[in-house]
C-alpha cells in the first residue's frame, strides 16, 4: 500500500493554504499506510541562501546552540528554526558543503533530511495527522508540495525509512510500491561511490535518480531510464524547485489519480484524497498512463507536458 499526495499550485492566491490542503489530503490517505508520514514543501527563497532541514532523535541536546556552533565555522549568517525533531538551517548556499562536513563532526547523530533553496522535508514515524501536527505543516505556505504515508514492506519503520527522500538540491521523491532489485542496485551504486544509508528500497531509487542526474541526465531522462533499470512496482512522484512529476511502472498496479484545474494540479493514490480541493467537481480527472513521464513546471506553460523536464 502506501499513500501519496501531491499538489502543484498555479493560482498564487492558494499558496498560503498549501500546507493546510496537503495535510488534509494526506490524512485522507492514512489507511493506506499508518507507519510513518512525511511532507516536502517548496516555500520561500532567499536569494543566495540555502536551507538544510536536519533531524535528530535528541533535539534538545543536538539543536542546542547548533546555529552558534556552525556560525563559528562557516562564512556568512546562519539561522535556525527548530520544529520538534527537525530544524531548518539557513545559510549561504556556497557554505552548504562545508556546513555538512562540520555537522557530521560536531553533531554526528544529526541527519540531513533535505538540502535546497526552497525545499524543506519533514518526516517521522507515526500517523499523518500526528506528524503534520508536530511540524505545524498546516501553517506552511508554498508553491507546491508532496506527502507520503507509509505501509512498510521492504525495510524497518524508522524516520530514515520514511518518505520523501531528498535526491538532489531541491529535489525529492516519494514512492508507492516495492522495488525488487534494490539490493543489487544498492551494491552497484555503492561501488560507484554513491552514499546509501539504509536497507530501504526507495532510498536506492532516490540514489539512482541522483546518480543519473549527477551524470548529466535531466530529471525527465532519469525517470525514463528508471523504467528500464528499476525492477518491481512503483508509482513515483518527484518534486523539483519548479514543479513536480509523476511516473508509474509499466504494470501500473499501484493506483494513481490526477486532477487539473486552472488553479492547481493534484495527485492522489486515490480520488478520495482529492475530493475537498476547490473546484474538483469540474476538474479534469484522469489516471496517469503506465510507463509515461508527466511533468508540470512553474517555468513552462501550465499544462500537462508528457516527456518533458
Amino acid at each position: 500500500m502506501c499513500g501519496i499526495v501531491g499538489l502543484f499550485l498555479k493560482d498564487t492566491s492558494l499558496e498560503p493554504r498549501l500546507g493546510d490542503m496537503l495535510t488534509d489530503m494526506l490524512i485522507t490517505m492514512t489507511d493506506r499506510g499508518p507507519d510513518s508520514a512525511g511532507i516536502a514543501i517548496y516555500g520561500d527563497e532567499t536569494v543566495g541562501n540555502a536551507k538544510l532541514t536536519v533531524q535528530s532523535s535528541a533535539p534538545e541536546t543536538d539543536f542546542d546552540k547548533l546555529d552558534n556552533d556552525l556560525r563559528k565555522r562557516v562564512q556568512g549568517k546562519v539561522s535556525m528554526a527548530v520544529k520538534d525533531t527537525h530544524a531548518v538551517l539557513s545559510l549561504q548556499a556556497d557554505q552548504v558543503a562545508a556546513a555538512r562536513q562540520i555537522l557530521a563532526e560536531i553533531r554526528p547523530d544529526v541527519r540531513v533530511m533535505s538540502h535546497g533553496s526552497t525545499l524543506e522535508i519533514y518526516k517521522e514515524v507515526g500517523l499523518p495527522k500526528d506528524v503534520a501536527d508536530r511540524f505545524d505543516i498546516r501553517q506552511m505556505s508554498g508553491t507546491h508540495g508532496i506527502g507520503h504515508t507509509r505501509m512498510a514492506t521492504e525495510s524497518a519503520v524508522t524516520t530514515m525509512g520514511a518518505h520523501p527522500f531528498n535526491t538532489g538540491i531541491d529535489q525529492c521523491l516519494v514512492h508507492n510500491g516495492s522495488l525488487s532489485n534494490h539490493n543489487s542496485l544498492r551494491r552497484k551504486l555503492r561501488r560507484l561511490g554513491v552514499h546509501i544509508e539504509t536497507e530501504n528500497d526507495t532510498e536506492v531509487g532516490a540514489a539512482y535518480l541522483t546518480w543519473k542526474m549527477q551524470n548529466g541526465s535531466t530529471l525527465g531522462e532519469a525517470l525514463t531510464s528508471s523504467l528500464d533499470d528499476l525492477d518491481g512496482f512503483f508509482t513515483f512522484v518527484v518534486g523539483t524547485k519548479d514543479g513536480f512529476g509523476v511516473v508509474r511502472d509499466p504494470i501500473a498496479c499501484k493506483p494513481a489519480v490526477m486532477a487539473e484545474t486552472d488553479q492547481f494540479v493534484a495527485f492522489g493514490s486515490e480520488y478520495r484524497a482529492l475530493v475537498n480541493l476547490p473546484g474538483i467537481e469540474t476538474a479534469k480527472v484522469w489516471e496517469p498512463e503506465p510507463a509515461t513521464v508527466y511533468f508540470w513546471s512553474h517555468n513552462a506553460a501550465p499544462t500537462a507536458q508528457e516527456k518533458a523536464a
Partner: protein
Amino acid sequence: MQTFDIEAEGLRALNSTLHAQAANTNQTHWEIVNPKGSHAIAVGLDAPIEVNIKGSTGYYCAGMNKQATVHVHGSVGPGTAENMMSGMVVVEGDASQYAGATGHGGTLVIKGNASSRCGISMKGIDIIVHGNIGHMSAFMAQSGNLVVCGDAGEALGDSLYEARLFVRGSVKSLGADCIEKEMRPEHLTLLEELLGRGGCDAKASEFKRYGSARQLYNFNIDNAY
C-alpha cells in the same frame, strides 16, 4: 425515491440498507449522494433495485452485484463490478484497473475509458466500453463478451479461453494465444445487440473480433492428467 447521504450516514449503514431490500421491495429507486471516492459502495446487492450514485467512487463499487442496476454518475476506482453475477452497472465516467474482473454475468457499461486489466478472468459477464481499455485486458478471460469502441492497450486477451473480444479501434498488441478471428453473421448479430444494450453509437461492421487460438498447453488433451 429514497435518498441516502453516505457522508452523513456511513458506508455500512448504506450497504446494510440496500442488502435489506427483498425481491418484492417497493423501494426500488435509490439515490446515493456524497460518495466522495469511498470504497465498496453498493456491493453485494441482490434485489431488482436501481441505485444511482451521484459522484465518483473508490475501490470495488458494485462488486458481486446480482439483479440490481447500479448507475455511477462519475468515475470509479479499481475493481468496479468485480465478480458481478447478474444485473447491470453503468459508469458515466472512467474506470480504473480490473473493472468487471471475474464477472460471471450481467452487463458492465463504461462510458469513458477503462484502464488496465479490464475484464481480467471474466467468466460470462458482458463488458461494453465506449472509450479505450488499458494493457492486459481480458487476461485469462473464460467466457462472456468484451466490446471496446476505442483502442485496446498491450497484451489484449493473453491466455484467454472462450471469451469474445470486439475492438473498433487499434490494438497495441495481442497477448499470448490471442488472434484476430473472422466476423461471421452470428457475431455481427450478437455485437449489434451488445452495442444497443450499451448505448453505443457504433456499427458492428466497424469492429474486429479477437479470440483464443487454442494453442496453449492446456488446450491439448494429451496434457490432461
